[in-house]
């Protein structure tokens, strides 16, 4: 859903710029020399495990933390020293932070009240934005009378109504159940594209990040490890951590033969992108890239393996295959009733194999 047009969006001028931003909490280095450009109108996701510094980075953009070093710019304005209530960086909080003592209308209208918008206009805009998020008619309810999904929309409406310069979202879906999460993330993405709002989004869910983003920055231990489109992150991870964190991966050790060939377990594998390194390298092969055939049916050079375990997962069947010297996870999509047993051959399509450069 996001790959098309993503490249164009990412080439627009930067709207949020972080330059060598560092933040410590006592002894812990929460964010370590982070630089990032978020293009005008793009949807950029900070992705990483808990404690990686993604939320702290987001909060520095909102102004809740002041960086210990480095600077943050919105367009060309340096905002590092501007207090949060003077930045127009509306945020959707993970636990929504809806004001429990205010109705839906009062919650949504709060930002307008703080901006001294006249009552009549405020009422009109509240009605407008509630319609936008599909909550018309719920104005007088209180947060505790709403479902989790509705609360989430109120939080979103409350952020959107102030027409923020950039929209910040801190794991906004983590309190929803799995089905709703998928639906709401689609809605958020559609809304963001319709409004063309520059958005910075934080999540630890790699699937969510891949589905929703124009650009992903993978973070670990306070650092950004890789910035790229979802496809780049998935197919060409910069290092082992990124490859492992985003999706499932087989890490296969091999010996470089030349720029396009690697020696793996007695088989020479062809690689599409030229290899710039020599000696031992690690190949990343996603489980769904491998083709699995009954032994002897390959008709071309293939790795020989033996199926150790099988799991039927509905839309695919997952096999754990032991080859000479390594363990593989292989996903075979849309399986029929037959499953493979015993000796098998593994085919590795050259255009999909990625060689780690670190």
């Amino acid at each position, binding site marked *: 859903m996001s790959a098309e047009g993503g490249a164009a969006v990412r080439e627009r001028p930067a709207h949020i710029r972080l330059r060598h931003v560092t933040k410590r*909490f006592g002894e812990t280095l929460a964010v370590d020399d982070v630089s990032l450009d978020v293009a005008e109108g793009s949807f950029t996701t900070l992705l990483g495990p808990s404690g990686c510094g993604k939320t702290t980075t987001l*909060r520095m953009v*909102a*102004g*809740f*933390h002041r960086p210990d070093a480095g600077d943050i710019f919105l367009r060309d304005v340096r905002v590092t020293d501007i*207090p*949060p*209530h*003077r930045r*127009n*960086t*509306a*945020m959707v*909080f*993970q*636990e929504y*932070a809806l*004001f*429990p*003592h205010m109705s839906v209308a009062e919650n949504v209208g*709060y*930002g307008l*009240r*703080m*901006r001294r918008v006249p009552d009549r206009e405020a009422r009109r805009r509240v009605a407008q934005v509630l319609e936008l998020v599909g909550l018309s008619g719920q104005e007088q309810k209180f947060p*505790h009378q709403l479902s989790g999904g509705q609360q989430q929309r109120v939080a979103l409406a*409350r*952020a959107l109504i*102030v027409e923020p310069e950039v929209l910040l979202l801190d794991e906004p879906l983590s309190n929803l159940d799995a089905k709703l999460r998928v639906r709401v993330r689609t809605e958020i993405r559609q809304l963001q594209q319709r409004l063309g709002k520059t958005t910075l989004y934080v999540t630890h869910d790699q699937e969510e990040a891949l589905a929703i983003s124009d650009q992903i920055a993978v973070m670990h231990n306070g650092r950004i490890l890789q910035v790229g489109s979802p496809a780049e992150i998935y197919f060409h991870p910069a290092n082992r951590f990124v490859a492992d964190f985003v999706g499932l991966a087989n890490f296969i050790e091999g010996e470089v033969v030349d720029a396009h060939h690697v020696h793996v377990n007695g088989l020479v594998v062809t690689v599409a992108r030229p290899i710039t390194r020599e000696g031992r390298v690690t190949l990343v092969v996603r489980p769904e890239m491998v083709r699995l055939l009954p032994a002897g049916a390959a008709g071309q050079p293939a790795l020989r393996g033996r199926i150790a375990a099988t799991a039927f997962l509905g839309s695919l069947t997952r096999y754990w295959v032991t080859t000479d010297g390594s363990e593989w996870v292989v996903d075979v999509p849309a399986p029929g009733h037959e499953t493979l047993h015993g000796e098998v051959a593994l085919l590795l399509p050259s255009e999909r194999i990625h060689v780690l450069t670190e």
Partner: protein
Amino acid sequence: MSPLAVLRWGEVRRQAADPGLALTFLGAAGVLVLFVLYPAFRVLLYPSLHDYLAIPQSLRWMQAAHNSLVMMVISTLSATFVGLLFAFATTRPDIPGRRFFRNIAMLPLFAPPFMVAFAYILMFGRLGLITHTLLGMTANIFGWHGLWMVQTVAFFPLAMLIITGVLEAANPSLEHAARNLGADEWSVLRTITLALARPGIAGAMLVVAISVLADFGNAVVIAGGFPLLATEAWFRMEGMGDLKGAALVVAMLLVPTVALFLLERYWVSRRAYTTITGRGSRIERPPTPPLLKGLVVALCALVSVLILLVYFGVVAGAFTAVWGRDWSLTLSHWRLAQDRIWTLWTSVKIGAIAGVMTGVVGVVVAFLTSRSLPLRNFLDFLAVLPGALPGVFVGVGFVLAFNATPLGGTLWILATALAFWHLPMGYQAAAARLKQIERSIEEAAVNLGASGLRVLWDVYVPLLFRALVEAFAVSFIRAVTNVSIVIFLISPGQVVATFVILNMIQNNIWGAAGALTTMLLLLTFASIGLTWLLVGRVVRTTAVAG
């Protein structure tokens, strides 16, 4: 028969198969009816309907009722305001001296109920250290204005504890969300922080209002000729032997206290905004606006001085030759106090008996109401009801109910009255602790063959040890410092220290009164220290903000 009724009946039969538990239940219910409900009904039924209908004709009673309500309103407002101020100061990390303010504010909670008034006579009275000696004024502190100041200082800590609890429970993300939407610090304070604390402030006002209405100790010392319901009951009985009048007055007092109590328990306490403590507490809060900060610190410092003066005055009084005239140091008051030290021993005996009773009854009743027994809500109601009863009401109730029985004139009538008046504290502490204990621990014991009572003894008593010790300590401390109940139940052979002190204050024997009060304070703080050693935390002598 409805399925529900069948279910209930089945439950009764199931429980009846455990005769020990059933007997305990009946015993506990009987004891509560006898010592909580029965004295209350004795009071309410003692005057005839005709007597009740004649109340509006009695100018003095209407005056007392009016005064009590006025004091309730003004003292509640001022105490809640000061409480809010302290709660705000102690929950802001950037207020200088916030820990100091918090500790100081706890001091009035440990003072005997007449002590603030006594100290302010020493400080601001006709011969007051500040008014007379330092400022050379002729001041009259007796009356409504003196009582107002005293009740504000005495009861604001209750408000502080409740409001602090609410402010601390507020999710910090809400404030951050407000800032994120453009609110400056004053707006955050007005629209979020204080708005969220509204139910807590309302709850604090109700609790303070009950305390003000029922305040006997301070009123009897400092109200002078200003008639109030709480003191009127005692004047009726002591001066005129008018039991019926006393019963009528405390019955009048009961109406507003019970109403406030029910309002607090069944309305305000349920309206608290449940806030989920989420992550995000790591976000540093922006500094408090300097103007607000200065104002809060200045006012808190002023009140802190007023509190320190309470303790300073009483202790200094015990070592001063003639207060207001001869400021030389002396130990002579301690010799007079020593003559009366046996009354302190009586107080300790009564306090110990009351403490054991409160602890045991509290734990047993809490255990019973945690079972799915029929009538458990009734039992729960009886165990918290004393919290709504003014001390003078309980005092008159026990006089009417038990003075003519063998209990009358013994230590036991005093200890029993105090024990059951303090029951809500012991009961609620134990009930709260029980809720934290996993039901599966008990199920494991039952699964291995333990009976209902065996479960209480083997599983809960060891786990409830802390609640038991705390219930004992709270009941003990409040018993040895009580005046509102003991004043009605005292007999010549069983004089307690507080009664003697009160008499000394009223007869201007301030030095010895200061010495005995100092000893009472030492006893109180020793008990708090001992409890702290046993259970590892400072026990609270109030039922609020558990």
